[in-house]
């Protein structure tokens, strides 16, 4: 009897591929501690290598796009807006190896690299759009520092410390401005106590942690102006034990 024809290769838009991709994206977001949540934009390729009965290894090549939700935000991914092209989008390229054993998926390995869209592409569509700036640019650092000090000086909430700068954009025309986004965490000080001795203010322990996110815009020319908006998420139980956040890390790659 002729051998059974080999199963047709999985298509990238097949339900089984999409389920595997969704599982992989949730894993990537769940195991990252820096930057923003990423959403699936395209399944570039999928390869299935049968290992035995109901046992397959799946190799996925995924094209992701950065969302506006910081990785510490409790907002569900489906409610996170994908950063638009004119906001200077950031793409993530991920290779993920999964195992599907008796219908249950697990991630064996993942490697991602993120990179911003080219400035030329953005300016071609939007000549006056602000462009991403380096996170250690002096004007960026000065804006983050001024914004955090401004918030801490005005609030009755706990004194906030910087966790990491998420992104920064600069514009030179028609005005010179800097806009920044950064992650913060509540400390064990009130703002008033911090005025006495900010150095003594420590981040709250993991079981009481309270993370938040700030956005700020600073007009530098033709006049100085600063607007700051910080939101604390409230205490969240971490989904699983993750490595502690370094004090001022701004790592961009997950691997």
């Amino acid at each position, binding site marked *: 009897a002729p051998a059974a024809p080999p199963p047709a*290769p*999985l*298509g*990238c*838009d*097949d339900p089984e*591929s999409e389920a595997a991709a969704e599982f992989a994206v949730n894993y990537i977001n769940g195991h990252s501690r820096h930057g923003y949540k990423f*959403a*699936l*934009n*395209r*399944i*570039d*390729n*999928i390869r299935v290598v049968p290992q035995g009965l109901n046992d397959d290894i799946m190799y996925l090549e995924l*094209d992701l*796009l950065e969302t506006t939700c910081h990785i510490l935000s409790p907002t569900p991914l489906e409610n996170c807006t*994908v950063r638009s*092209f004119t906001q200077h*989008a950031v*793409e993530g390229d991920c290779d993920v190896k999964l195992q599907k054993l008796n219908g249950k998926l697990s991630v064996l390995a993942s490697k991602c690299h993120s990179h911003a*869209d080219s400035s030329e*592409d953005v300016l071609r569509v939007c000549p006056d759009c602000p462009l991403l700036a380096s996170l250690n640019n002096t004007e960026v650092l000065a804006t983050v520092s001024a914004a955090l000090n401004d918030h801490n000086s005005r609030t009755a909430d706990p004194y906030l410390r910087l966790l990491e700068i998420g992104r920064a954009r600069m514009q030179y025309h028609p005005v010179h401005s800097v806009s920044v986004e950064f992650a913060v965490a509540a400390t064990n000080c009130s703002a008033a106590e911090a005025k006495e001795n900010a150095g003594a203010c420590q981040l709250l322990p993991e079981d009481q942690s309270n993370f938040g996110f700030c956005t700020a815009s600073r007009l530098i020319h033709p006049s100085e102006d600063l607007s700051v908006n910080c939101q604390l998420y409230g205490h969240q139980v971490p989904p699983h034990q993750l490595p502690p956040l370094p004090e001022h890390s701004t790592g961009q790659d997950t691997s």
Partner: protein
Amino acid sequence: PVAKRAVAEAAQHDKVPRPVGFVPPPPPCPGKIRHFDI
């Protein structure tokens, strides 16, 4: 004696005539773009 037909001729005869309006299925990968391509 069995004469081997020229490949082109054989291919010509073996080519299955496609119905009018036949649209080949899209390649299995890459998949659809959900937001935009950069």
